[in-house]
């Protein structure tokens, strides 16, 4: 019962995160490229309910941020100026899934106040908004690449396992080439073969292709193993006796057995591939400005002064941990379930 409960929490968390990222425009108070040049590296804004006089407010508010005259480059909160937080406010126009245009944001504070839940970067861009918008690219790249890897794995592993003989040898030896290289080195080798400067639209395609196409060997191997044992089953032999074609056998009798392997592989690959995008972009080989991705949010940490002064620049990376934990526990739960079904 308790395990079921925990699994429910995990799924709920994943759904919330994915929805927040899909509807990033709505949940983010600002656009991903909205700059506040006068507020670079502003710390995360605190939400308050109690004001200086000790009076309670139902509506949360934030204090204004002013330059600290004693300490150049730092900020102090101006306790005399309050900005109330409003919900469903009009703001920067955005599009959801590239189709539905809107201007309504979940929350915002009255002008000229600003609310930065995760602080700002060197151009005064809201890190929280950029994290949500960045997730669109990183998560989509991770999901698509995982789907691509596993699809190639299904086709290759299915064919290799089903036909055996020299086809099997050829495909699996080819796969070994991909497994014989450390994964990041392979990623760089393939990335090096593609154009360095690509347009915004191409970058997603490029990331998906690079990351997805180098990871097919492991799922292919696992699926081949399942297919090898599945094709010997009596049901398959009987179906063949009735004159079923190879394609039909693979589709209806053999590959459905690999369902569990496919599901666990996808859930394990998604976090790994999100990290691949993060790593590539962090090292300057992925997404370029001003488009945010989880990798480019971390890229500024390569400068010592950012790293050592502005702790909130670490937040995007820290937020990845619960997300990955959720994915891994889904993979664990799927595996557990399959084991209990098999027994």
């Amino acid at each position: 019962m308790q395990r079921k409960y925990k699994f429910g929490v995990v799924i709920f968390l994943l759904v919330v995160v994915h929805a927040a990222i899909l509807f990033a425009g709505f949940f983010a108070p600002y656009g991903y490229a909205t700059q506040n040049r006068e507020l670079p590296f502003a710390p995360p804004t605190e939400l308050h309910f109690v004001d200086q006089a000790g009076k309670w407010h139902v509506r949360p508010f934030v204090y204004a941020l002013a330059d600290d005259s004693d300490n150049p480059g730092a900020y102090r909160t101006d306790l005399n100026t309050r900005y109330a937080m409003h919900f469903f406010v009009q703001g920067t126009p955005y599009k959801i899934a590239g189709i539905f245009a809107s201007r309504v944001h979940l929350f915002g504070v009255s002008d000229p106040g600003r609310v930065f839940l995760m602080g700002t970067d060197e151009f005064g861009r809201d890190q929280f908004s950029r994290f949500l918008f960045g997730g669109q690219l990183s998560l989509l790249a991770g999901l698509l690449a995982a789907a691509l890897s596993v699809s190639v794995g299904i086709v290759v592993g299915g064919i290799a396992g089903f036909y055996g003989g020299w086809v099997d040898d050829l495909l699996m030896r080819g796969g070994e080439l991909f497994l014989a290289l450390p994964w990041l080195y392979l990623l760089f080798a393939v990335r090096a073969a593609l154009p360095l400067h690509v347009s915004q639209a191409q970058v997603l395609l490029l990331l998906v292709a690079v990351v997805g196409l180098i990871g097919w060997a492991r799922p292919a191997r696992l699926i081949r193993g399942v297919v090898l044992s599945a094709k010997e089953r009596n049901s398959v032999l009987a179906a063949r006796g009735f004159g079923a074609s190879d394609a039909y056998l693979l589709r209806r009798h053999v590959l459905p057995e690999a369902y569990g392997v496919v599901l666990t592989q996808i859930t394990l690959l998604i976090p790994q591939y999100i990290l691949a995008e993060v790593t590539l972009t962090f090292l300057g080989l992925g997404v370029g400005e001003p488009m945010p991705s989880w990798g480019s949010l971390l890229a500024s940490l390569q400068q010592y002064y950012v790293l050592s002064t502005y702790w909130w620049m670490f937040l995007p990376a820290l937020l990845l941990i619960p997300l990955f934990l959720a994915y891994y526990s889904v993979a664990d739960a799927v595996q557990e379930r399959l084991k209990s079904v098999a027994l």
Partner: protein
Amino acid sequence: MKYLGRRLIHAALLLIGVSFFSFALLQWAPGDFFDELQLNPRISARTVEALRVEYGLNQSLPVRYEHWLRSVAHGDLGFSLAYNSAVGPIIAVRARNTLVLTGAATLMAWLLGIPLGIWTATSGRGWANRILGVTTSTLLTIPDLLLFLCLLLLAVRTGWFPAGGMFSPSAEAAAFWPRAKDVFAHLFLPAFGLAVVSLPVLIRHVRSAMVDVLASPFLRAARGHGIPRMRVLFRYALPVAANPLISLFGFSVATMLSASLIAEVILSWPGLGPLLIEATLARDVYVVVATVLLSAVFLVFGNLLADLLLVAVDPRIRME
């Protein structure tokens, strides 16, 4: 012996395959090293073309592959256009540094992982065991990038460790021992980070291998004879549990190299990682090919070493 011979041939074929694959991939890539020059209005298109001819970039793929193989046989591993010298000497230093780092990290990981794994296997369901379990599964989800950034932050903020690099500028001319000490000070942080990256998997494997062995009757007999507990665990149980761990060592070379790439870039350890990224950005193809090939060589040798160890440790495998 026959088995090892077959493994060697297999490894050689694999390396040839990797070399051709990476070579072909990079030759087929759009753009080359001299593309940047074309943007410069002072350099005529004819000069750029002449440079391409001079460096052989206009020849067909098989011809260039053959040239390259010949240079590999000389130990040159191709020609770096950015460094304007043979790739071999450049990469040798970098490879040595990467080996030092990954070697130290592997040593550290196993020295920590084996006792910890044995401990979790033997010490029931206590709270300390549970804490270790939670810690390892959390460590598994921490992105390598974040871990090394945190270590760098630690070095920058506390000043306990040098913030990246491999040598202090003052240590260049020093005698052997002070220099070794200096390198060790720089080595500790990245090696520790890499060890932490590989620890969770290691502990889990040691644990499961030991749990299987600990149930066997000969260990109870050994205990019954009054042999001390530590001796039973390390001298009697561990060798029996060693086989899957040795295989794990072979596999772990790959993860270690990948993690080391990130560690080297963030903590500016002058290994293969930064070189590979530099070369990728500069389109210095032969350096990329050589680095990728070298990483495959490390991996193949790691696996071969694991096989040799298995043969040395397990008489059953020797008999086959």
